[in-house]
């Protein structure tokens, strides 16, 4: 009961903030709405018995990455006065992909025979599900290679960013 009410609350918040992110004209406000989306997502993770993921979501995305986003937006001081829909190839592609994703989601929910894919009642959770220990174990056993490859990718990205930033100064 309480869980359903909270789920409804987080859903409405997430959707409302997501719409705000897309439609608001002031870039800093858009970033703040995105923080709202991340916070409501984190609430949903808690409802899904994944407190560790929820905390990391706030700590990494809302607490660090979005602060850097804001930092850049504030430095650039982008004026939010431009008209909302300017035609252009990127916008066109964005809208196209948006509709493709929407169609996909609707297909999953509405297509004939879709009952098989829809999630049924939640299975009983194994002991310690969602705890840091359980997630750590899975990351370093089952998903070790994807995990390490992701780390290397991120490292490459960091070094690349430093190299690119340096070249400009010289």
């Amino acid at each position, binding site marked *: 009961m309480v869980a359903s009410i909270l789920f409804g609350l987080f859903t409405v918040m997430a959707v409302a903030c997501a719409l705000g992110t897309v439609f608001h004209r002031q870039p800093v406000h858009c970033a*703040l709405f995105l923080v709202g989306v991340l916070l409501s997502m984190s609430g949903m993770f808690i409802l899904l018995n994944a407190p560790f993921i929820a*905390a990391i979501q706030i700590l990494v995305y*809302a607490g660090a990455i979005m602060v850097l986003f804001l930092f850049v937006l504030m430095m650039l001081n982008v004026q939010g006065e431009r008209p909302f829909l300017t035609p252009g190839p990127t916008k066109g592609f964005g809208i196209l992909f948006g509709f493709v994703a929407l169609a996909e989601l609707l297909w999953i929910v509405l297509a004939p025979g879709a009952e098989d894919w829809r999630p049924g009642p939640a299975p009983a959770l194994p002991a310690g599900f969602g705890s840091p220990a359980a997630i750590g174990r899975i990351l370093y056993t089952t998903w070790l290679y994807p995990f390490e490859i992701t780390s290397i990718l991120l490292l490459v990205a960091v070094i690349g960013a430093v190299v690119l930033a340096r070249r400009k100064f010289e």
Partner: protein
Amino acid sequence: VDVAFLIEAAAKVAVVLGFVLISVVYVVWMERKVLGHMQDRIGPQRVGPFGLLQTIADGLKLFMKEDMIPSQVDKAVYFIAPAIPIVTALIAMSVIPFGNSLYLFGRTIPLHIADVNIAILFILGTTSMGVYGIVLGGWASNSKYPLLGGLRSAAQMISYELAQGIALVSVVMWSGTLSLNEMVKQQGHTWFVLNVPLFIAFWIYVICAIAETNRAPFDLPEAETELVAGFHTEYSSMKWAFYFLGEYANMMVVSGVAICVFLGGWHGPVLPSVLWFLVKLALFLFCFIWLRATFPRLRYDQLMAFGWKFLLPLSLLNLALTGVWLVLRGA
């Protein structure tokens, strides 16, 4: 629904909330008194005995003051920003255990509002949200000095959060838990700070905590010699007071975490556990004030260099040392 449980939870929330909000008044008084004596002055002494009511008088003054709102501010953000630091600090306060369990009315009452098994991450998460108050306040004021203060604050908090987090990771490795309650329980005999790797982690944590709370010598976001008053230049009356309140509440949170994680929490001989916690908290806050009276403010490049080139590598080395230490001790 268990009614008794609800009453118990509500009572604890009220006590912690009331304690934080009231004690801020006396921390401010203590700060002015201690700073005064350290600078060979006597500090406030006119309102009440020893000036004890000075902060209350100041609070009343702030309530009565006209609420100035500059004309070009971003209204919504300008209004919300001062509330963020204090709200996040109070949320973080909810997982800090401030005493041993109490036996009252036939119930065992644990003295913390919520026992979260990932308390460390919870606190890091909520305090990392606190930076928004300063960054957004600086931006929404639509003025150059506050913007510079906000930018400095964003850069500073991100830089020092890293070393702080890594310092706490070595404690997590040592204790094998992320729960503050569990950590305090493990320190019944020996405080964590008395182990070599955690001793280093303690100092890294404390330095980062001072930077995170924007206290001297890391108070660059509000450096008055360069930025007028930094991020809160355009704020007045109660909005300004909320920033102030947030800063002190955040000082209590970081001190509370340091006490629970390194200094044995509420453990201590003879005195009741809650009193031990309060004594340690008061000592910690005193040190904050002491530092402010002692050190000149760092230059911005010194601050960044210290954070990235010294503290971060040191905390990583210390993390490795903790690992080696634990393996050797286990063998």
